[in-house]
């Protein structure tokens, strides 16, 4: 187990390292940020001083090594636009996005998995067909369109829910939280549902597919032959067996929701990381872009590691292999 962890950790560090190189070179290729940084009317001497200050006069490998050295000490540089340490900037936006992503995952999981299990348990029933129809809508209708529709119906026409923003927040252990008040909840409901819809469709399909497969297995038949009540056949024998693909997709989706909630955040004017990265791309705010992408890589690698460790908990056959 320890050996497995160390091996995975080394892999993770290698991935982060390679990605940092790709991201750095890629962003470097996009263009020269100095034009954005400087008043076009500034004189040549000031211009050159600034170039030297940011190290843009150095060759690319030297710039990269400097960047890498700083990164290892947790210093991602300073935003060209906000003049703030990039890490602080990103972390200040993290709670809003985290809150939104977690709410969306929660909705998708609590609704999607039971619906999928039911649809797989009675695949020929009318309710199952309705559920599957809904899931197709869930991941085929574009997020922005659903978002606009939600605002149209629930904010504009009915006026039940606010059309955007995060509402008031409370500080809990140093982190801003908005879901503790009714008003906060009313703000998060639409964007969270909007963000959840795609995942909901996906989880329904996954749970259904696993269910159909496992329900026809010999061990389910054997459990029934022992006279186990149906409820227990499903909860004891089936759930753990369908969990592996669900956990995998859950992990990936959670990562991508955190990283790329951009569309929903923009539509609902949600003050999260998505808006920050869009702004930074528009303004060629290079340190923010690079730091953000690298943090995303670290996020994905971490989630994957957690998912892999969960596999071992779910399937003893993987556990033995991992230990060997």
């Amino acid at each position, binding site marked *: 187990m320890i050996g497995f962890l160390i091996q995975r950790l080394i892999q993770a560090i290698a991935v982060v390292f390679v990605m940092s190189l790709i991201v750095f070179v890629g962003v470097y290729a996009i263009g020269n940020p100095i034009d954005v940084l400087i008043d076009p009317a500034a004189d040549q001497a000031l211009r050159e001083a600034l170039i030297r200050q940011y190290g843009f006069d150095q060759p690319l490998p030297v710039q990269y090594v400097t960047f890498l050295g700083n990164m290892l000490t947790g210093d991602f540089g300073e935003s060209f636009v906000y003049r703030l340490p990039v890490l602080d900037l990103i972390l200040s936006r993290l709670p809003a996005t985290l809150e939104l992503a977690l709410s969306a995952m929660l909705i998708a999981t609590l609704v999607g998995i039971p619906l999928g299990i039911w649809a797989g348990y009675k695949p020929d029933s009318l309710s199952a067909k309705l559920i599957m129809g809904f899931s197709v809508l869930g991941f085929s209708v574009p997020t922005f369109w659903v978002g606009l529709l939600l605002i149209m119906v629930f904010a504009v026409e009915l006026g039940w829910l606010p059309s955007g923003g995060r509402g008031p927040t409370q500080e809990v252990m140093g982190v801003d939280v908005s879901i503790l008040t009714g008003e906060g909840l009313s703000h998060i409901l639409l964007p969270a549902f909007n963000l959840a819809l795609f995942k909901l469709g996906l989880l329904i399909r996954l749970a259904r597919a696993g269910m159909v497969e496992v329900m026809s297995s*010999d061990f389910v038949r054997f459990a029934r032959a*022992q006279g186990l009540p149906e409820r227990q056949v499903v909860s004891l024998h089936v759930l753990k067996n369908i969990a592996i693909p669900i956990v995998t997709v859950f992990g990936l989706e959670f990562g991508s929701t955190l990283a790329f909630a951009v569309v929903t955040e923009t539509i609902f004017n949600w003050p999260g990381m998505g808006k920050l990265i869009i702004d930074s791309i528009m303004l060629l705010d290079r340190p923010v872009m690079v730091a953000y992408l690298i943090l995303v890589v670290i996020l994905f690698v971490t989630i994957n590691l957690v998912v892999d460790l969960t596999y071992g908990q779910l399937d003893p056959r993987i556990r033995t292999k991992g230990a060997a």
Partner: protein
Amino acid sequence: MSDVVLSVQGLETAFSTRAGTFKAVDGVSFDVGRGEIVGLVGESGSGKSVTGYSILGLVEPPGRIVGGRVELDGENLLALAPEKMRRMRGARVAMVFQDPMMTLNPVLRIGTQMIAAVRAHDPVSKADARTRARDALGIVGIPSPEERLDAYPHQLSGGMRQRVAIATALLHRPAVIIADEPTTALDVSIQGQILAEVRRLADETGTAFVWITHDLAVVSSLADKVCVMYAGRIVERGPADDVIASPRHPYTAGLLASVPSLHEPGAPLPQVPGSAPPPLQRPEGCAFRPRCARASEACLADPPLATFDDARRAALCHHPIEPDAWTSFSTSTASRNAS
């Protein structure tokens, strides 16, 4: 042995597929006495498994039981409400399946699975259920059962897994266990051990077994009675020794002629010529007719059930083999003498 625990009468189970509807089980009748082992023999596709599932009420769509009775101690299981039937399964009638790799849940410990099986019928504590599971493992000859309870299925050999399955089926001391080819996937020596164990269990616990197999050699070493199945029907039944010594149905005779261990060593093994027809293309009258050396015009009509030995034996055939004709028959299955 006169005491009948399970009586299957005229059982019919149909499947509706896109190509058409057919009866995988077509009027099957047989009795099982207390502690008796009945072999249910036939080629693959003859309807043995579906017979087993029908007895337990485990037939799944597109299959449906369309006729007959399954009496357990006089009570017709087919008339029971689903919840009542569930309480029968595992408690009064149990089933074991062919593939020991697949019948145990790969992600749960043996103990977890067996404890759930105990508590499905008896509201005992987990500790008590565990004790019963451990005792059951001991009964089927599993060494250090306490440790096995904590093992996962993949940590046990195929033979051990099948013993675990049999122990699970035995937990509530059911009147009957349907065993669907439980030793087919195991090698011969392990199979022999398990057969001996089952024989002992039937004698000691009074649990009866319906032992489904395609191997007549297994039946000859294990069963009290045998039912031979062909194309959804039982074509011959009787005491195992008698049927094997002198089969009355041409299909049984053909099966017997192809069993190596029942033969002179070195003699060539004749096979039953041809193969079983797909269920939707069964011929009119006797389904065995295209493969039968004794077939005549009469066989175009449904064969009658001919009984022998004071009805202790029966064969579904227009021209059953005479007892003395068997010797010449067995030396050459291809003997085409029709009368």
